[in-house]
């Protein structure tokens, strides 16, 4: 099938990092958590706090692959005014000041389906979104959004998991683009962590099937873990640990405290430093 011209930002970013000999750090935040303005401040600050790419969460009332931390983030964001159209507005505003850092929307299919697939893809591209990660669209449902996205030049980043065996992997890889996201555990976000050795062999297995960069997420919480992942994969994704900092910096009414943005960006920077330390060690 035909693939449209992409924004090129994801390809350019991984190429640049390959030149620097290091992995990418990809933080996840939930759009509008805990409110639209605070969330935008975080988004705007992330590239300066070591983010190489950014995953921006789209709320869904029934996030069946997410653990308590991201579920709570979704509820805060809902109360904070999250809607898919406002999330696209946030990306549009971000692009005024940053035309290089790739932004990937991550969420579930229904809000995009209700927005209307064609209109969503057009609006997302125009706003400056580079790719999509949609948890509940396996290859069996590619005709829904994946193929239209690829045709429209929107990257469709597929999840591969510990249950994706060799027989299934080619189908999972076939229509993925931008990078492959390896879900390190059979589980939900923000719970258990996988053993680095297991992840390493899984990444090597993926690399035998694709030339795309391989990102690893689920269960990465500390700079040390991020460093360990960065030594064996092309990117480390951290979500639950970051949204937990939002949860920990709210006042009694659930409003953002003055320290919130700084503390989120502080964790982002230390996770990014972990990722960069892996590069230095590899170079030594």
């Amino acid at each position: 099938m035909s693939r449209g011209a992409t924004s090129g930002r994801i390809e350019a970013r991984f190429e640049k990092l390959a030149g620097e000999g290091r992995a990418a750090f990809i933080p996840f935040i939930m759009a509008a958590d805990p409110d639209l303005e605070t969330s935008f401040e975080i988004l705007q600050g992330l590239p300066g706090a070591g983010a190489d790419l950014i995953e921006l969460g789209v709320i869904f009332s029934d996030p069946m692959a997410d653990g308590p931390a991201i579920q709570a983030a979704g509820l805060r964001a809902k109360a904070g005014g999250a809607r898919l159209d406002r999330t696209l507005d946030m990306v549009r505003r971000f692009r005024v000041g940053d035309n290089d850092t790739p932004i990937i929307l991550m969420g579930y299919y229904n809000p995009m389906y209700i927005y209307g697939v064609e209109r969503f893809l057009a609006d997302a591209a125009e706003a400056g979104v580079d790719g999509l990660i949609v948890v509940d669209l396996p290859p069996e449902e590619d005709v829904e959004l994946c193929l239209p996205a690829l045709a429209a030049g929107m990257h469709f980043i597929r999840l591969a998991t510990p249950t994706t065996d060799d027989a299934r992997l080619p189908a999972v890889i076939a229509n993925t683009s931008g990078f492959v996201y390896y879900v390190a555990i059979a589980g939900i976000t923000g719970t258990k962590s996988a053993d680095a050795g297991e992840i390493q062999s899984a990444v090597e297995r993926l690399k035998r099937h694709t030339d795309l960069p391989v990102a690893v997420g689920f269960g990465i919480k500390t700079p040390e873990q991020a460093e360990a992942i960065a030594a064996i994969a092309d990117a480390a994704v951290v979500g639950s640990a970051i949204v937990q900092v939002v949860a920990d910096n709210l006042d009694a009414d659930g409003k953002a405290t003055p320290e919130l943005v700084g503390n989120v960006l502080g964790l982002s920077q230390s996770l990014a430093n972990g990722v960069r330390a892996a590069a230095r060690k590899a170079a030594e």
Partner: protein
Amino acid sequence: MSAEPNSYQNGPDEHGHFGIFGGRFVAETLMPLILEVEQAYEDAKADPGFQAELDDYLTHYVGRPSPLYFAERITEHFGGAKLYFKRDELNHTGAHKINNCMGQILLARRMGKKRIIAETGAGQHGVATATVCARFGLECVVYMGATDIERQAPNVFRMKLLGAEVIPVTSGTATLKDAMNDALRDWVSNVDDTYYLIGTVAGPHPYPAMVRDFQKVIGEETRVQMQAAEGRLPDSLIACIGGGSNAMGLFYPFLDDTDVRIIGVEAAGHGIETGAHAASLTGGRPGVLHGNRTFLLQDDDGQILDAHSISAGLDYPGIGPEHSWLHESGRVEYVSVTDQEALDAFQLCSRLEGIIPALEPSHALAHVGKIAADLPADHLMVMNLCGRGDKDVFTIADALGVEL
């Protein structure tokens, strides 16, 4: 709207689609598990030994066939159509849910699974699951919304007596849809030994078709029993719908008998116009939730809305995908009935027939009351009395202002 199909009994296609509905919208982690269930179910269907074993348990453990009973006094009361009850409330555990649980537990055993998880709303499916797990010595974990645990305490205790672990779900709105989310999260986290025993004709393929197949015994028996009683097929069928498994079970064997009028009754709660209802077809639109595309109660941002019904078993913002398809194709009429209308029918059935029905089929009976009088006396109508009302006595007492 699509042209009338050659048969209404051919769905779903190999991808699990009923028209545009159904499908397999699940996380990649679950996809291999769902394919494994599908393969195991196909193998079981092709194995005469599987059906023979199931039939044996249905006869001797569940108590099938359930009677087809002429509800003489209600017929007289309404005046008009001759009303029969399909007495699935007489099954072991008091509802139709056990038909499906027995089928799926035998499948889980074939697959060598040791741990069974389930979601439950009113607790009927949870009790039925706990029952078959006890019978076969399998670990059982039931997810139940904290709100439902409070309003269905007797069923929670029953599940515990049967050896199940009941996990309160506090996420989201703490009702059936959230229990299903947490069951899916459990399955994603325990992929090696766990079987997810879904209780209704929803979820990803193959569940909607498989659960329907295990429930269609209701309609198959009805055909035979009505032939014996009246020498012909019924003129109409009527059943309540939450997810819609009892209705699919009754309807499915009659779908191609296009002279048979078929009516599904959704829960209108406080009234469709109030927004506090559980009528996905009447008040919702197509969307994707819990692994399938179907009619859902949702807002314009695609966020799923809370359902409301006095009946915990109908309190779900979605409906099985095959019902969505039958709705769009026009083969089945879907109507809705309010809490109050169901309460009135509940009392009527108790007093006139000596049968205390569950609140769920009370919805179906309320609609019978709306149409029966306008039908001729030789009109044969079958209503699925899919559950008994013992579980609901506290809810009813509360609604009637009685302190127990």
